[in-house]
């Protein structure tokens, strides 16, 4: 029997062939934590009375959720991380001004790469599956375990095969693909399992769209969502000075389930409250004329250049509806800079959007755009749970950047087709 991508990556790191269902203790390449999850890991580490972490080079610390510090208590959490990084000689601590939203930053800076095994105390750590890495969200105590001994425990997961054909139509991108996939699987349809993407359509999915797709694997409960390493990945890695070998699953690998998706059949999707799996075609939602108060374009899901370019292509020369606030958040300092250079920020400001420094901010109802009771937002983020963006009486609809931008102009959720 051949091997899945997951089995190949894990076997390679483990030094012998591993099988689905097996529990393994494995040294990881990267252990990530943020301003919410790192303090617990650091405290657990201190409790052991060890003086040095196992390997400072494995450790990445990115304060991004409540940064720039929203209040005294969040400032205290970041201070604790900063001091820990200094004391332990951790170089991959990203201070405001050099940072980005963790899952935008790490691939962009070449910190995670194809074939790596990565754990992060953040559920969207699965994002790096786009690079052909095995990366998954864990808890703070798991991260403390890496600080202590460099290792984490894994159950080698069963794999869902997602077979992709065709090419995206106009105004359709990775976000629509993944929302459709989640609605097909349900919010726990991939619980404990990995998803692997395969098929002739893969070559028509850009790197940024792949990040968006892998990012939301967790919204179907998935452990991770992995793309093969092909020319597109190799080009991306090369730009970062990384040489990546091509990697794909064997033809006779064992999958627990198969799903087929035709990119050409997809319409832009909108996930209605209160689950990411509630996605509907835009043509259906548009009829409901859902009025919105706020648009958010950004996050670890859709805060990259492809996303900002897509939003700008819709907003160029237009204005946001006067009853709507639009917040645009570049995912990292580098994305910010490129957006300025390409003139995208001009377009946004001219359209009456507020452009923010990189932060998670409103995505988790943290700061920089929290919703009041009864307010409605359309957002390019990844979760629309009750109260996710603020008051428990507010609502969040999830979409791609083009749909979010078009909705901002119209004042209600609408397709970019009919502007």
């Amino acid at each position, binding site marked *: 029997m051949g091997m899945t991508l997951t089995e190949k990556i894990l076997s390679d790191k483990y030094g012998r062939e591993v099988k689905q269902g097996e529990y393994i203790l494995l040294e990881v390449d990267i252990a990530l934590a943020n301003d919410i999850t790192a303090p617990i890991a650091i405290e657990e580490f201190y409790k052991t009375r060890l003086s040095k972490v196992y390997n400072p080079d494995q450790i990445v610390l990115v304060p991004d959720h409540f940064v720039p510090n929203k209040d005294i208590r969040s400032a205290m959490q970041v201070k604790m991380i900063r001091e820990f990084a200094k004391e332990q000689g951790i170089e991959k601590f990203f201070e405001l001004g050099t940072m980005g939203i963790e899952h935008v930053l790490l691939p962009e800076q070449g910190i995670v790469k194809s074939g790596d095994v990565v754990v992060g*105390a953040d559920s969207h750590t699965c994002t790096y599956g786009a690079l052909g890495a095995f990366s998954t969200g864990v808890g703070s105590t798991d991260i403390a375990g890496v600080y202590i*001994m460099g290792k984490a425990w894994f159950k080698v997961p069963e794999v869902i095969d997602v077979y992709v054909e065709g090419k995206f139509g106009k105004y359709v991108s990775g976000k629509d693909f993944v929302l459709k996939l989640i609605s097909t699987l349900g919010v726990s349809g991939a619980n404990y399992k990995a998803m692997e993407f395969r098929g002739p359509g893969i070559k028509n999915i850009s790197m940024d769209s792949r990040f968006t797709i892998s990012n939301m694997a967790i919204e179907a*409960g998935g452990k991770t969502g992995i793309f093969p390493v092909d020319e597109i990945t190799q080009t991306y890695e090369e730009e970062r000075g990384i040489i990546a070998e091509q990697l794909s699953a064997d033809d006779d690998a064992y999958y627990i389930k198969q799903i087929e998706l035709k990119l050409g059949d997809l319409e832009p999707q909108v996930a209605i409250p209160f689950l990411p799996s509630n996605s509907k075609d835009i043509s259906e939602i548009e009829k409901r004329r859902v009025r919105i108060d706020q648009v958010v374009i950004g996050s670890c899901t859709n805060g990259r250049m492809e996303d900002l370019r897509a939003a700008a292509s819709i907003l160029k020369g237009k204005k946001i509806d006067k009853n709507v606030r639009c917040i645009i958040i570049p995912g990292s300092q580098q994305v910010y800079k490129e957006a300025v250079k390409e003139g995208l920020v001009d377009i946004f400001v001219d359209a009456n959007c507020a452009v923010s420094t990189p932060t998670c901010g409103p995505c988790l109802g943290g700061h920089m755009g929290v919703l009041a009771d009864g307010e409605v937002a359309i957002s390019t983020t990844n979760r629309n749970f009750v109260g996710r963006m603020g008051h428990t009486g507010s609502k969040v609809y999830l979409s791609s950047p083009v749909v979010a931008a078009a909705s901002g102009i119209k004042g209600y959720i609408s397709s970019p087709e009919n502007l």
Partner: protein
Amino acid sequence: MEIKGKVFVFGNDVNTDEIIPARYLYTHNPQELAKYCMEDARPGFGKRDDIKGGIIVAGENFGCGSSREHAPISIKAAGISCVIAKSFARIFLRNCINIGLPIVEVKDTAIFKEGDIISIDFNKGIIINENTGKRLEFGSYPDFMKEIISHGGWINYAKNLIKGEKE
């Protein structure tokens, strides 16, 4: 190990934003987090006196969403002695094993009603509803997880391991 306590029933897909909303994540102090345990699923729950020693019973996919360990920490610190659900989200399950919050997966939760007193025998894998006398069996954890639990959590396991390597 045996646990006896009062049942508090919740639904399907209870996510970690409901268990401990992001607006309270400015702290990682367990006692502070305990006050807001289940706040957006049932406001005021964490501040009630009668939840100490209680048992949360939920449907499918309990603990889905964010990886925040604050969620099981707040449940544990609030004095909840065990969570029973039809299924748990992966990271939540992992966090519970790592920090030592007992959880039980059962196929059917229909025999549990709000306020029932139930007892759980972890060695025998049996839950008894003291009000109705109904019984339910559950399977044991995989060996690897039993190892972690017997060490009292992941940190102790890790400490033991590095001690072993040094000797």
